[in-house]
């Protein structure tokens, strides 16, 4: 593979890439706010969209003010801001994912897809440790776990076109969100409903899928 081809196939994962990704997440959350809130109203208390929208609005302001210059610094700022502004369970959980990812990426100005895959693994580990959820509990872990696996395998050793890894992970993420529909919630507020939580998509899984799709779109455009 020539150098030109590699450049065309693989986006450069610098601070700008991550800022665009976060911006796309913020847009997606704002657009899907009502859908997320409706999903939450069915099996929770109906504020997931509002809370995340408040968080990502604050994230945009924080990134604007701080102008972080490395991928790691971008994600640490995102995580810290979410923890400080969202509240509920999703604030600490999403905040931990982004903070762990940011710390894993360190201070490098540009990272590889393999670095990003490893960062996602670190984020997922933090998420599972803090929330205590396993795959199948009808939470955002049902999206993150398979998406991180798929992304890591597809990213491989960097020999093949990596852009497809982003798309594949987003597809797996969306499938993971859909698969929460028949499940019975075992964590979070929806778990109080017992069998009545079945038949509804988990709002945290739905917002997690938006994050992965936003990443794929950023890679496609970059």
């Amino acid at each position, binding site marked *: 593979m020539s150098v030109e081809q590699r450049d065309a196939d693989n986006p450069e994962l610098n601070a700008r890439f991550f800022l665009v990704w976060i911006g796309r997440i913020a847009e997606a959350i704002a657009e899907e706010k009502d859908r997320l809130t409706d999903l939450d109203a069915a099996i929770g*208390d*109906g504020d997931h969209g*509002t809370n995340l929208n408040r968080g990502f609005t604050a994230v945009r302001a924080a990134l604007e003010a701080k102008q972080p210059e490395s991928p790691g610094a971008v994600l640490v700022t995102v995580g810290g801001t979410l923890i400080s502004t969202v509240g509920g369970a999703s*604030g600490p959980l999403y905040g931990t994912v982004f903070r762990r990812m940011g710390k894993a990426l360190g201070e490098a100005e540009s990272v590889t897809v393999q670095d990003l895959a490893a960062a996602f693994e670190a984020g997922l580990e933090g998420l599972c440790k*803090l*929330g205590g959820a396993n795959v199948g509990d009808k939470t955002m872990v049902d999206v993150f776990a398979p998406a991180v696996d798929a992304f890591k395998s597809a990213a491989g050793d960097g020999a093949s076109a990596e852009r497809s890894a982003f798309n594949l992970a987003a597809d797996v993420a969306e499938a993971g969100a859909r698969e929460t529909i028949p499940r019975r919630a075992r964590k*979070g507020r929806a778990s*109080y409903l017992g069998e009545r939580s079945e038949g509804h998509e988990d709002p945290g899984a739905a917002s997690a899928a938006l994050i992965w799709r936003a990443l794929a779109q950023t890679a496609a455009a970059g």
Partner: protein
Amino acid sequence: MKKLINAPESVVADALEGLSFAHPELSVDLERRFVRRAGTPTAGKTALVSGGGSGHEPLHAGFVGFGMLDAACAGEVFTSPVPDQMLAAAQSVHAGAGVLFLVKNYTGDVLNFQLAAELLDDEGIESRTVLIDDDVAVEDSLYTAGRRGTGATLFAEKIAGALAERGGDLATVAAMAEQVNANSRSFGIALGPCTTPAAGRPGFQLAEDEVELGIGIHGEPGRRRAPMAPASELAEQAVDAVCTDLDFTGDAMVLVNGMGASPLLELYVVYNEVHRALEKRGVRIVRNLVGNYVTSLDMPGFSVTLCRAGEDMLELWDAPVRTPALRWGA
């Protein structure tokens, strides 16, 4: 749905500002959204800090004052506060003897208080956390987030607060809060849903002839639906659920709590039935509270909380308290 608000986004801030004018004995940090006793914390006193989503008033800010909490953090409606608030509140009332966090067992509250405790530890301030999980409606704790914290929060905040006021150290006060929680059980029934300001529409639908059994305090649907029935039968169901879970034979403190939109007239009707149902079971009510204490916005309905009362707990319950929502003897 009509609401007495200016805008959904400003509800919590506007209410906190109102609270600050209504209660000059409290100090309200409008920016960091916590309420504390005005003045300097008493040196060497164990600090009690609680908090949670807004919409449960008077819980928690209404229980800040002499004999109860030192500070309370207010989250968005039905949303846990963030660690920054808890850290700021804890730092502002810490008086050299550590901080006890009293936390209702909901995933969001637990996670945010956990992060706050870590931050506080970084600052070199010792803290303990006691989870309140008294709601018997959540049956299978292996496959759920565990039992929710509801009415027992009031008992724990009052009794542990009194002990802290007397100079109880952090470990002793935490142990007392745990003891209160271990001896308390609750069950709630809703006649209808509640409406959050942000959503503007009810959280679930309930037919005219239905009630929701085993509700929490966030407008989430309960465990199951049942036909509407006279107060005597509804009270019997709540008392039965509570007494099936724990043997309350003997002396007990009772809270008949309104969920926010049921008139006191009806709550006293319920109390009458609860009294009867307990008497039948050999439970003697030695202290009681009837009113709106742990609410769920504008939800019609009630919850019953029982607490097995030992001599030590009763004495602490009777100790002077001076807060916006609970005051006697002081």
